[in-house]
């Protein structure tokens, strides 16, 4: 079953690099990350690659395989023909450090800008009560493994470096949506999502959803609902009027804008 895979890997750093050939023995049932590891162990001991769990649960081994943003550990070789060339490059939206490793600090910086969850005091018996149906939307978003493939594929920053300061990216719209839908949170981040996180920059072309290895419906379930929630406070004169004359849903009571 073993065969020689025509593997190409981008090697280099900030000063430049190239796609090099690393023909490598692979066998049935292996994934791209196995091939990379074999190259590391036998041909290029200094090949830089990030990985941890190798089971699609930690989101470390993000890269681009034949141009598509994917997790290397979840990309089976059997999805390719044996004579097919597989080209592995680092994520192209982030500054490259070396080989397949990129500087993903953009994402950690954005995480810091987001005001955290702010609950009210616990109930009298020192517990909290939330209905399962009220937490389920947030639970979908919390499946996020922070592989940053959505951040990487989003053209807003992929193709426009200058947008990075003003745009938090899909991973954090997910977080804004999670908190905005949280049944207990007391912060209202809707204006912040639009102004600081750059929700308006998103043109909902859905690439984040396409590449999400967790299958989170980022666009339909988080970004668009968040855009609608922002519209409630910023773009909808009827909702504004309703709020002025006291005709509005009580569902958002108890929140203060941050």
């Amino acid at each position, binding site marked *: 079953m073993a065969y020689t895979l025509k593997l190409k890997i981008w090697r280099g*750093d*900030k*000063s430049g690099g190239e796609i090099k050939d690393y023909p490598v023995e692979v*066998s*049935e*049932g*292996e*994934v791209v*990350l*196995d091939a990379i590891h074999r190259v*590391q*162990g*036998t041909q290029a*001991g*200094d*090949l*830089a*690659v990030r*990985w*941890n*769990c*190798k*089971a*699609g*649960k*930690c*989101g*470390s081994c993000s890269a681009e395989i034949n141009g598509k943003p994917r997790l290397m*550990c*979840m990309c*089976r070789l059997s999805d390719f023909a044996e004579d097919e060339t597989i080209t592995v490059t680092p994520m192209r939206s982030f*500054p490259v*450090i*070396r080989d397949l*490793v990129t*500087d993903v*600090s953009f994402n*950690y910086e954005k*995480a*810091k800008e987001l005001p*955290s*969850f702010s*609950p009210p005091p*616990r109930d009298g018996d020192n*517990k*909290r*009560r*939330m*209905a*399962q149906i009220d*937490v389920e939307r*947030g*639970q979908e978003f*919390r*499946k*996020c*493994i*922070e592989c940053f493939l959505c951040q990487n594929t989003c053209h807003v920053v992929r193709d426009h470096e200058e947008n990075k300061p003003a745009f938090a990216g899909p991973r954090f719209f997910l977080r804004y949506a999670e*908190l905005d839908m*949280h049944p207990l949170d007391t912060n209202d981040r809707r204006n912040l999502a639009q102004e600081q996180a750059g929700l308006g920059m998103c043109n909902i072309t859905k690439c984040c959803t396409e590449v999400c290895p967790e299958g989170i419906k980022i666009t339909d379930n988080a970004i668009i609902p968040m855009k609608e929630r922002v519209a409630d406070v910023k773009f909808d004169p009827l909702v504004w009027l309703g709020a002025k004359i006291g005709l509005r849903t009580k569902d958002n009571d108890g929140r203060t804008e941050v």
Partner: protein
Amino acid sequence: MSVSASSTTDGDRHPMTGNQLDGNAEGGMERHTYDVVVIGAGGAGLRAAIAAHESGAKTAIVCKSLLGKAHTVMAEGGIAASMGNVYPDDNWEVHFRDTMRGGKMLNNWRMAQLHAQEAPERVMELEDWGALFDRTEDGLISQRDFGGHKYARLAHVGDRTGLEMIRTLQQRAVALGIDVFMECTITDVFKDGGRIAGAFGYWRESGRFVVFDAPSVILATGGIGKSFKVTSNSWEYTGDGHALAMRAGASLINMEFVQFHPTGMVWPPSVKGLLVTESVRGDGGILKNSDGERFMFDYIPEFFRAETADTVEEADAWYEDKKNNRRPPELLPRDEVARAINSEIKAGRGTPHGGVYLDIASRRTPEFIRKRLPSMYHQFKELADVDITSEPMEIGPTCHYVMGGVEVDADTQESAVVGLYAVGECSGGMHGSNRLGGNSLGDLLVFGKRAGEAATAYAASLGAARPQVDEADVKAAQASALAPFEVEGGENPYTIQSDLQQSMNDLVGIIRTRSELEESLREIEAFKTRASTMVVEGHRQYNPGWHLALDLRNMLIVSECIAKAALAREESRGGHTRDDFPGPNAEWGTKNLVVNLNAAGTGVDLHEKPLPVMPDELKKYFETPAAAPVVEPAETSEGDK
């Protein structure tokens, strides 16, 4: 080819972390002063850092990977905490009793007690910080059944509780503004006299060295699974904390107890060892050999005969009627099942890929399987191209967790070295000889908080009179880290690592015997010799070969600890099974095995130590004799950390 060296000048901030850099040449030294340095950013490390920060310490988290990638994300089942949301009868006393019995009474009783008492509040804190646990009908945190726990007790989020926990703690740490040194490996801790003075490490990205001046260091580095070939653990699990503690002069206990989970994937090779949750068997899955025989009926030990079904009819009826039927033999304790699987494979009745079959496809409808085991369905579909609703899985035992670790004070988690603390999997004692599912996530939270607070209190108590890092030690640490580059003509670390993993798997695996353990100690000596001359190609910038070379030293030392302790303990108990000493021994049930680095620093010394004595008011919970193994019901467990 150097990224950082070409662009870094004084005053630049580190591109990955935003931390201030000092020095501008490659290999320049960066220096930071903290009150508390936490090594490791899994559940334990993050919880410790949060506690330290909240009690006023200037705190740093140093981790080998990116923040949020630690092995805690792999935990599936839940956090054991007697909140009583599902069964109001549950309380810390029942949890304490379950934990001690699960650990075959070898646990540090005080740790088990503190854990049981404090876990509920630790879980509630996670919710305060934004965790979204599954709910009960009346809106409380739902709790699930798990092996060895008398009541449904595990707070959970589907089968991804670990991810929820690490993300919650990570977001909390970020909100508090705690400094995080990502992709930074600590290779040494410094002492001044008998006390901790700081730590030494390097940025994985640039190879640049970092010195931390800090009176308190908390080890939260996880386990040792990477010493074994087949493991559910990630590459980070190289026993760094265990080794750092030993080199600093602390001791390890219970290192012979390594939990092998009976069901890990054996194929495809890329995921060999990946966990297959116990609930597959709990939901009706059975084990078969290559002859199609349901072999577990042949392996019912005398001790469990009374409570285990001996006919297929009775075993199958148990799923419907648990009162009038006995448990199927597939649900015997983990060590029994792992041993049986091992025997079948050795007898030549294994599957093509060297496992046995775990079959639920022929026993349950596809709808049932997809509903009850969504992540297992997904895992096999995506990774193995196996549809578990129509074909059996191939599984075999996998190294899962080490019960042993740094010997610490139960209340503060401080080791024998003043200022050095250990929490989570890299600490020892809490789980005795065998850990119950769900107890590790609780362990991380409870003792993470305690260690963080104790470390802060200690650092504060020093005032200005802090231990100082000796510059000679810094030079020595630097030389030691660079040693692999100095060698010429030596061996590649990948080869040595792979040989070590094979050797440990073969000789110090689930079933151990004297001759094999002696053989393994000889092999470890040979690996140590080979490692002393291993060579690394390339340069210091993000060089995984070099990183592995440094981690390998730790793997070798913990491997030696495990093999040595396993050879000494002449009984079978919990996670330690000796073919030549089947069954527990009452006398061994009264003592721990303690290992230290020897005086020359080249190997390990071992001695026995009596167990801490449990006070009488806690003894009343145990009627069974101390040495008696305890049945671990497994029918509802869901993943296993």
